[in-house]
């Protein structure tokens, strides 16, 4: 969506949502790579409750809003669900992400929240994530992969 005609409450709404999201990452201790690693080492399965609780809330809200057939108040967008096309990249990317997650215990959202808590050490991960995103972008730009029009609002 363009800046032209953007509702004055658009950025505030994004900000409120982000603060609640980040607070949740704090409360659930997901901002601590150690806690994520404990899940991946199968010694504390709490992360399942986090992911379960979050996806149930999101899923119910997506379904309910989509069923109304109405549009979002601040943008006029139609309410829909998150459905991405399936291809090989989904598997390869998921695998590469899995190795990184298993090695470090960090993922993007949790890293941002962790930085907010004052965990300066996590900057290594933030720098790494930008470097990784850049590297894959360079590779895909060079290989002439066109930016396929995917549904917006991706992860």
């Amino acid at each position, binding site marked *: 969506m363009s800046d032209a005609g953007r509702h004055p409450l*658009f*950025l505030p709404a994004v900000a409120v*949502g982000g603060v609640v999201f980040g607070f949740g990452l704090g409360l659930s201790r997901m*901002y601590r790579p150690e806690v994520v690693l404990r899940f991946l080492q199968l010694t504390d399965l709490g992360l399942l409750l986090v992911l379960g609780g*979050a996806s149930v809330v999101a899923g119910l809200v997506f379904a309910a809003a989509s069923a109304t057939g109405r549009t979002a108040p601040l943008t006029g967008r139609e309410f829909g669900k998150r459905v991405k096309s399936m291809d090989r990249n*989904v598997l390869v990317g998921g695998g590469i992400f899995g190795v990184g997650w298993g090695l470090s215990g960090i993922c993007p959202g949790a890293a941002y929240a962790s930085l907010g808590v004052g965990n300066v050490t996590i900057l290594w991960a933030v720098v790494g994530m930008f470097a990784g995103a850049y590297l894959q972008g360079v590779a895909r*730009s060079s290989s002439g992969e066109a930016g396929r029009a995917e549904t*917006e609002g*991706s992860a």
Partner: protein
Amino acid sequence: MVAETLLPNGWVHYLLGGLLIGTGTAVVYLSTGIVAGASTFLESTLSYVSDRSRFQQYRFRASRDWRVVFTLSIAAGGALYGLAFGEFGWTTDVQWWRLLVGGVLVGVGTRLGKGCTSGHGVCGVGSLSETSLVNVATFVGVAVGTAQVVAALGVTP
């Protein structure tokens, strides 16, 4: 007691935290219709500094400003939590090289795979999207295996 074995550190804060993460997603969604994940920010922000065709796509340029706001707000939410619960200033003991190398792989993998723990994990799973379920099953399975190997090699935490 099974719960004490599987959840030695309790469960309430995990569940409440998860509900708040879902609520944050819902606030953005109900007001804007946008399903906001956390990893697109990496590429949309790179569009400010790189002319590569991958980053200059409309979907990145058009969303880059609000994604910066979203990310800073997530950090602010973390700060609020830290201050409220006396955990502000906590730092991780995970080695810098693990964070850096892991971070690079997370950057590559989430963007190639079209999402991360919030996009595919929370929103995609919530949408019962087959693509997301496949992606999540893949990254969780691989991550568990990787973490087991790292732990077996004696690297802690």
